[in-house]
């Protein structure tokens, strides 16, 4: 009986981990999409009124911000991504999830070059790799670490 219970609990743990991995994978895609949408939305934003501008100029600007669809969608993706991450963290091991989370940095950099026409160079690529490695290492459970 005790063996059976153990097998079932191992299976449940494995299934939960897979579920968490997929959820966090979804988070990274949503997070990267949010960055693209926000940056795109900012391109369509009118310049902020200067210091001497009246209330009306600020209201017009604020209306521009609130009605900016890409910006709104970006914030929504960002919120969804954060919510999904919080849920996923309950199901899976951090040591597995952190390296997946770090993939967001990779997606954003690739998409920035492809969609936003940004340039890249060896320093940017090396810096990115070192940062991703750093985030991945953070999640490793050390001898005394918990959570």
């Amino acid at each position, binding site marked *: 009986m005790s063996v059976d219970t153990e097998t079932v609990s191992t299976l449940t743990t494995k299934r939960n981990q897979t579920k968490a991995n997929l959820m966090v994978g979804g988070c990274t895609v949503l997070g990267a999409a949010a*960055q693209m949408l*926000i*940056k795109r939305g*900012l391109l369509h*934003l009118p310049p902020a009124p200067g210091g001497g501008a009246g209330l009306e100029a600020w209201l017009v600007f604020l209306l521009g911000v609130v009605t900016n669809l890409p*910006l709104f969608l970006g*914030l929504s993706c*960002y919120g969804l991504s*954060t919510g999904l991450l919080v849920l996923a963290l309950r199901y899976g091991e951090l040591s597995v999830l952190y390296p997946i989370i770090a993939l967001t*940095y990779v997606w*954003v*950099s690739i998409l*920035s*070059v492809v969609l*936003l026409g*940004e*340039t*890249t*160079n*060896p*320093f*940017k*690529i*090396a*810096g*990115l*790799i*070192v*940062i*991703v*490695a*750093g*985030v*991945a*290492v*953070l*999640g*490793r*459970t*050390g*001898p*005394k*670490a918990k*959570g």
Partner: protein
Amino acid sequence: MKTPLSSILLVIFASFIGSFGAVFLKAGADKLERNLMRLLLNWRLAAGIFFYLTSFVIYTIAIRNGELTILYPMVSMGYLWTLLWARLIFHEPFTRSKFAGIGLILTGVVILNLGNR
């Protein structure tokens, strides 16, 4: 296009403000109950969301000028602040992995800066 230093500093500041979001959410989560009214009255959760939103606004202002290939990876500085508060406020232990991770992130941010031209 070179990313201005002001944008880089603003992103790091946004990550600093965002780390307080994590602290208050954690404090709020510790007092979580299955009761909608209590959930709505949980000021720590509200403060956490407030800090996250403020951080988001600062980040948005920051990335108006500059490249995401430089600015977005710098958000990882948030891990440094969060680990600091985890140690100071929640007395979570510093481990070798955490030290190594933070060391790598800081090194990566410096290397990334060298590519800003």
